[in-house]
């Protein structure tokens, strides 16, 4: 699980072009949207693509994303439970 969390942090920094943010600066429980990392609606859509492309998870309803992408912890738990690759 901790490996997956590290992988997610690296991917988020890389794919969402977070400049000058390092893996150590993202705590597992930090909110990803709003106050925390300051991600926005396009980032949320990008994370939905990431779930599909890298973990074979297709969200039936994009609104589910809001809960799944709360933090690295919630993302990792959801991926572990639902991944198909």
């Amino acid at each position, binding site marked *: 699980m901790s490996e997956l969390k590290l992988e997610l942090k690296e991917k988020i920094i890389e*794919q*969402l*072009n*977070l*400049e*000058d943010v390092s893996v150590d600066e993202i705590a597992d429980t930090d909110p990803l949207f709003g106050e925390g990392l*300051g991600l926005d609606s*396009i*980032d949320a*859509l*990008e994370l939905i*693509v990431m779930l*599909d*492309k890298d973990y074979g998870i297709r969200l039936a309803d994009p609104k589910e994303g809001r809960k799944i992408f709360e933090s690295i912890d919630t993302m990792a738990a959801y991926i572990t439970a639902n991944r198909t690759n």
Partner: protein
Amino acid sequence: MSTPDYHIKSYCRISNGKISKNGEVLFSDDSEEFPAFIKAAYKHFETDYSKFFKMDNLSKLAFIGAEVLLKDNNEENTALVLSNSASSLDTDRKHQNAISDQSGAYASPAVFVYTLPNICMGEISIRHKLYSENSFFIFAEFNPHLLSDYANDLLETGQANEVLCGWVDYDKGKYDAFLYVIAKKGLLPFDTGELTKLYRTK
């Protein structure tokens, strides 16, 4: 043709590793690649705006040009009238490559949103809180005549108090920007001959 009522308030040129304002070089960098050059410029101007790093190349180019000209701008009604030759083709090609990928086609929303040339004006509007008109034209080359007609009409009818006009082109690694602000008072006469001269001075 000169318009006596209006002036070129300020102008910015970005090309060949240099950024100048009103003819004076503010920044130069010998990075070969545009992304490194424009990032160095962002740092040089001490711009604190993390969304910059999410922008595509065209938006980064236009954004930095607008930073140079609108940094201390307090005219909320500054219209944006920009133009280029390559539209958003640099990003269009990225989106096309992603959806043509044989190993699995995944469109990226963060790429797709930049497949429109006017997005760079949206970025400038957000940054400088401009609730003004945006128009993006495509010409084979810089066309000061048509842009000037357009700016004149916005100013004469009171639809804008100032206009940020110009050329902002990014294609196949090459970049070329010439932006200028037209206002009541300014440095130089608002004249298409003058604009052509300033554009050609690299």
